[in-house]
């Protein structure tokens, strides 16, 4: 939460007038919570086959001037608990020092902790591959958690639900034509360009979260989600969710869940969110949780409606409740053609002229869902770049992503989330760097100096899926909103390192930094 929000709420009562405040972009740069800002040292111990034996990580995390709402958790629980990644490393030790500075507060930013962990680990794995003389794909394969080991308990608290990391890697390698890379690199060389390819095999914990788990970590409320599915007498449906959509398309995805389950035409379903006076208490949208947690709550409310509908239909059709079956929007007496559709049931529920005692009028159900575990999307992203060694300019020539999000409710929307996440991650890797001078003045406080990714900074992407079935989630879904931002940064930096034959380059890999690295690499 922010000062401005509280002050506006307080001030409108104090002056007894409506008060509006809107940030301009410069204020947003100054006072919106920033993200990331770690310095870290990481080490991996290996046996002679390149098998990971243990990892040690030392991290300093900048929290800014004050603690923002989630500041403490991002570099701790959302970071260190993801350090196992896709690997069966048996021993992990992490130390995180969180510090205050005279800079804007730092808090959650797309991925929150998980991109930091993934960048560190997936860069380190490439360094390990180089040190062991192994192909980056090979060292990953040797260390992946095997498909038959799920659910898999990592040494850092998290217990992964499901995954088939080899499947995603193989599919991504094929999609990226990894085999053909050497030829493309040769061809690029003839044009004076350095071509590189980089892998990133990430896992993340989202679908935040099981209340029991976060309770143990010091959270004082649960992280369930709520839903209410209400039929109006004329048969259309209002779905109230405690989640909140700000671009994710809930009004569509959630309507799809309801149309699938209840058989009501999608145009007759309205999803309502974001108003404390309209919707029941809910936890909101972040940590890729809306579908994996909120969607399940909706499904459960729909189940309750079906149960209730059976009672009403049984009464109306003069049958035993046990004989009523529900399918495709119709309540029917099993083995007969006597049936009524769900809209008729709804009308009946609000016109209960002859209801027996015990049958409650109304057709409106609530449900809450508290998952047993996080959901653990994973995947392999492969980035191919061409570096112009004369200028240091990096062009992403090909980007392939294969993700496991479990079951997809709306593939179009999921793919859009992947695209957006990738570009957020590419932005971090190549363009975006927030800089303060030594006096604490923010010198990247506008789009004139803070480089946002534009359409011509990125190519179109090749996206595919290697789904597994998460056992804890009744819908079989995992979150997808943050995956790209988590997977992309190491894929891009690994590709640049590969192109130049260097150990590492820090983000953002600006043209000057890349040019300097290229100078060092060739000298």
């Amino acid at each position, binding site marked *: 939460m922010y000062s401005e929000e509280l002050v506006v709420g307080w001030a409108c009562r104090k002056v007894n007038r409506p008060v509006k405040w809107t940030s301009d972009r*410069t204020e947003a740069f100054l006072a919106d919570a920033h993200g990331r800002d770690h310095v870290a040292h990481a080490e991996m111990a290996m046996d002679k086959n390149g098998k990971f034996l243990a990892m040690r990580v030392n991290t300093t995390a900048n929290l800014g001037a004050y603690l923002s709402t989630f500041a403490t958790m991002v570099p701790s629980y959302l970071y260190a608990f993801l350090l196992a990644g896709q690997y069966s490393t048996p021993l992990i030790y992490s130390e995180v020092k969180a510090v205050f500075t005279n800079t804007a507060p730092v808090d959650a930013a797309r991925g929150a902790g998980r991109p930091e962990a993934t960048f560190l680990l997936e860069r380190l794995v490439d360094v390990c591959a180089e040190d062991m003389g192994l192909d980056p794909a090979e060292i990953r394969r040797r260390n992946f958690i095997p498909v038959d080991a799920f659910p898999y308990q990592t040494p850092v608290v998290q217990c992964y639900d499901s995954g088939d990391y080899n499947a995603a890697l193989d599919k991504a390698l094929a999609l990226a034509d990894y085999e053909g890379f050497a030829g493309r690199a040769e061809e690029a060389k003839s044009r004076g360009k350095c071509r590189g390819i980089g892998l990133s095999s990430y896992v993340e914990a989202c679908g935040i979260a099981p209340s029991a788990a976060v309770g143990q970590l010091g959270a004082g409320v649960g992280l369930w989600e709520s839903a209410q599915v209400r039929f109006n007498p004329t048969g259309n449906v209002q779905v109230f969710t405690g989640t909140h959509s700000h671009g994710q398309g809930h009004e569509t995805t959630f309507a799809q869940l309801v149309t699938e389950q209840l058989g009501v035409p999608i145009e007759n379903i309205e999803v309502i969110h974001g108003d404390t006076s309209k919707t029941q208490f809910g936890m909101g949208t972040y940590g890729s949780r809306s579908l994996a947690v909120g969607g399940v709550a909706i499904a459960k409310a729909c189940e309750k409606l079906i149960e209730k509908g059976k009672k009403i239909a049984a009464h109306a059709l003069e049958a035993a409740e046990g004989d009523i079956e529900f399918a495709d929007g119709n309540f029917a007496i099993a083995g007969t053609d006597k049936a009524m559709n769900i809209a008729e049931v709804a009308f009946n529920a609000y016109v209960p002229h002859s209801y027996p005692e015990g049958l409650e009028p109304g057709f409106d159900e609530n449900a809450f869902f508290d998952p047993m575990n996080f959901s653990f999307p994973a995947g392999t992203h492969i980035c191919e770049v061409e570096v112009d060694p*004369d*200028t240091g300019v990096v062009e992403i020539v090909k980007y392939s992503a294969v993700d496991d999000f479990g079951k997809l409710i709306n593939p179009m929307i999921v793919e859009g989330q992947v695209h957006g996440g990738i570009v957020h991650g590419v932005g971090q890797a190549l*363009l975006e760097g927030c*800089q303060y001078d030594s006096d604490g003045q923010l*010198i*990247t406080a506008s*789009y*004139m*100096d*803070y*480089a*946002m990714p534009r359409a011509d*900074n990125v190519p179109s992407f090749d996206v595919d899926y290697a789904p597994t079935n998460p056992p804890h989630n009744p819908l079989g879904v995992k979150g997808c909103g943050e995956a790209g931002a988590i997977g992309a940064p190491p894929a891009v930096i690994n590709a640049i390192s590969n192109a130049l034959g260097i150990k590492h380059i820090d983000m953002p890999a*600006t*043209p*000057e930094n890349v*040019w*300097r690295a290229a100078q060092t690499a060739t000298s």
Partner: protein
Amino acid sequence: MYNFSYQKVSSIADAVDAIQKAEDGKFVAGGQTMLPTMKHRLASPSDVIDLGGIDELKGISVDGDTVTIGAMTTHAEVAASSDVQGAIPALANLAGNIGDPAVRNRGTLGGSIANNDPAADYPAAVIGLGATVKTNKREISGDEFFTGMFETALEDDEVITAVLFPKADASAYMKFENPASRYAIVGVFVASSGGAVKVGVTGATACAHRGMRLEEALNGNFTADAVDGVEIPIEKMNSDIHASAEYRAHLVKVMTKRAVEACS
């Protein structure tokens, strides 16, 4: 923005009259730099005198070896002009890469060179092509027009009317963009005419300038390789979070080579 008084004038005489009467007046051409500055309250002119209504400041004409572009001609108009494309394609190309399409639809040639931002594109072309800046008072050679960071030879009540660009046998502009603002970190305009080479450099130093050392090397040996031996003095280069002086000096050479290659 602070308040000010806006006047749209329809003749140069009215414009001059208005600025002389104003306490602290400013001409606005396209306004693409001035309005954001005023919005941030970093400038507070008492009067804003809009030159957009003066028809004689607009338009493009080709006469023999000279392309004349009115000061209030927008970047988009220059980029799209078949006259400019035919006579000096590098100039059309330069105009078509200033800012973004919406900015190009309002930003003007006169506004750009009068502002003389150290990272603006047009000054490189004015210098590289050896253009002449025509005002309501006189004609100023490109070399003499740009006098320092954001400074020009213009007097307070002087209005640019047009820029006269001589055709070149071959010319090219190569720009290395700032990834955030898309201004030039370094932009180099190379023009070759009758064996004589001119090089206009922007972005690199406090003010656009002629690349004399580069010209020396390229006169008589108009090849990219000729640039290799040229030493670019680092101490004069701009340095900021986007590019150090050393990197800028390097880019001046790379962009020059690429411009020379594009000329052939």
